[in-house]
């Protein structure tokens, strides 16, 4: 197996794990919508854009006072988002066919399985029984991955803070909830556009309003299932996308998108040493065998060469011997002939 097929196999393993995403089933089973946790319903048909909620939020969280007072409703003309100075903002929308502008309040939705909590590498975020997703600034490193992860673009950062910047977002007024009080914005709302209760009750209320007013509302509670469900939910007459709300978020929790990649970790840790060790052993063995074969081949070649040389030598020697013998014989013959000749000639002379 070469490196590429190997990588291909690894990829196949990782992707099949990603597709199965083992932890997804577990997360849904564990949560079941947290029916007894705190929740809030925002009814966009009731909001009049008075900014009282913004004002109450600003006071409770001791945020800096904005340049324009909260009574200045011109602020609503420009689209705003949450910031380190405003944990909640109300924006104006003009849905197609609507007689009057529609207002929508934006704040942390306090997800049942928050993306920020799943993303945080130091567990600074936590979903509490109260329903609040709380943030612990005392451990926060400031990587801002929570802001990348949040599908609702809620967490904000103190970019102007030099040494102790914090992530800032709506706290669900958790300290007030503990005292038995309502969240400040809910309390301040003059039109009861915000209702606080247990999540189960809030869903009942929302559903009742939709049922009791046929044709008035979209037949959907935004946040009941979005991203695995949120504590803050919205009902509206206009389609949610016309209030700047994403309708393509799906119902999976944020954590389910990364569960597959995380579950590949033990596979990598378990498989790589075995496979790499195996490859190492194979390449080492190949090397050794090649070395051995080389040595053998060399030895054989030497043996063959020396045998050949020896054979040739003895052959040559034999040949030389024969040749020598013949030459000697010839010489002897010649000598004998010469001797015989000289004898006859001597006899002739005599």
């Amino acid at each position, binding site marked *: 197996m070469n490196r590429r097929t190997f990588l291909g196999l690894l990829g196949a393993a990782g992707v099949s794990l990603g597709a199965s995403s083992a932890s997804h089933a577990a997360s849904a089973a564990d949560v079941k919508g947290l029916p007894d946790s705190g929740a809030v319903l925002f009814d966009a048909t009731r909001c009049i854009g008075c900014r009282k909620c913004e004002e109450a939020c600003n006071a409770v969280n001791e945020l800096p006072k904005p340049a324009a007072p909260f009574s200045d409703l011109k602020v609503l003309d420009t689209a705003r988002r949450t910031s380190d100075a405003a944990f909640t903002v109300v924006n104006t929308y003009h849905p197609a066919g609507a007689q009057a502008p529609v207002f929508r309040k934006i704040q942390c939705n306090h997800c049942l399985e928050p993306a920020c909590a799943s993303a945080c590498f130091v567990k600074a975020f936590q979903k509490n029984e109260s329903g609040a997703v709380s943030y612990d600034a005392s451990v926060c490193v400031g990587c801002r991955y929570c802001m990348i992860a949040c599908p609702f673009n809620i967490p904000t950062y103190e970019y*102007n803070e030099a040494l102790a*910047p914090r992530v800032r977002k709506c706290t669900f007024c958790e300290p007030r909830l503990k005292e038995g009080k309502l969240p400040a914005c809910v309390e301040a709302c003059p039109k009861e556009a915000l209702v606080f209760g247990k999540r189960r009750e809030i869903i009942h209320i929302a559903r009742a309003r939709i049922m009791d007013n046929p044709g008035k509302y979209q037949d959907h509670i935004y946040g009941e299932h979005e991203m695995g469900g949120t504590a803050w939910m919205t009902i509206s007459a206009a389609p949610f996308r016309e209030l700047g709300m994403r309708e393509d978020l799906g119902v999976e929790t944020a954590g389910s998108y990364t569960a597959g990649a995380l579950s590949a970790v033990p596979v990598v840790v378990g498989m790589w040493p075995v496979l790499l060790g195996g490859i190492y052993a194979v390449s080492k063995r190949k090397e050794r065998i090649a070395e051995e074969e080389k040595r053998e081949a060399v030895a054989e070649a030497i043996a063959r060469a020396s045998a050949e040389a020896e054979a040739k030598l003895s052959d040559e020697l034999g040949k030389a011997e024969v040749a020598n013998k013949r030459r000697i014989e010839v010489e002897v013959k010649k000598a004998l002939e010469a001797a015989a000749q000289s004898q006859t000639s001597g006899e002739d002379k005599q």
Partner: protein
Amino acid sequence: MSDHAATAKTGGGALFTPFNIIAGVIVLIGLGLTVMRFTGGLAAVTNLTDYNPWGIWIAFDLLCGVALAAGGYTTSAACYIFGLKRYHGAVRPAILTAFLGYSLVVFALHYDVGRPWRLPFPIFLQQGTTSILFEVGLCVFIYLTVLFVEFLPVALEWQGWPRLRNLLVKLTMALTILGVILSTMHQSSLGALFLIAPSKLHPLWYSAYLPLFFFVSSIFAGLSMVIFEGSLSHRWLHHKMDQGHLDASVQVVLGFAKAASLVMFGYLILKVFGLAMDNRWHYLLTGYGVWFLVEILGFVALPCYLYALGAREKNLTLIRRTSVLAVLGIVVNRFNICLVAFNWQLSAADRYFPSLGEIGVSVFVVTVGLIAFKFITTRMPVFHEHPDYPDHH
């Protein structure tokens, strides 16, 4: 002795060389930006906003930095695990590049995160094990340690500490395997970071394959970086190289070009799988689609072809030029995922463009790396063998 003479020649003697002057100016600017960053906060230097919490310090310094430092694990794996001994000459420069690369990644993170002195918190205080970033952090932390130990023999040879050096060299195999495990995990996890935000990343770039894309592309990023870094070193540090290194470097360039070409081809096929799996073809006809095609065809398919051509025709110049294109391609890809295709649905006014201060810090970080690389390679046995340890092959 010869080391000292060479040092004098390359900078120890003449202080005001063009390199030193330019590097000095950049370092001064960098120090000024550092003061601004830690007195005025991130807002004093960056264009980061609540919509765009990650800028080029993440896209370039972290994502590109880690990908381009992948030469360390690819080269040492090729040499020690796959038994390609002819690449041995490339291992030390690659390990050094990787070690410096990761050090600079961590260094740069000190500018980006809000409270850098808390960077050990996720590892030692409270572990957010559901976070992909936790995996990245842990792996980078351990791998930086591994790279340090892998690099240490070079410094020990330089300083003459043979016993510890020989002990560490015995660990090579174990460290190499550990390096591959850790690299597989955090290279892929850098891609997995974006899995959590399917609603923010453009569908052409968002894919369940993101971890695989990041891992596979890190392989050819590492190979290309070894070629690219080699060609720079040959130009500026030629006198530091011994005959063994010079002879091996041709083999390295040809072999790595061929390997990079093959891996790029595999990556292209994976990319097509990604499009097909999620049925994202129709996005190709949009503006983002054109840009996606530029990335895939211009910065992956083209270098893939040019590497293959260069390897076949043994054209070293072509291969070295191609490595620049391939490295740029990695930068384009990481920028696309982290910045260009991220938050693609926001209005233009809410999008991000880096400030001069951010660019300044990134240039400063790279310059610090170059200075360290030059300092080390002109003194320590990186491009040449130490006379006392001729047989570290």
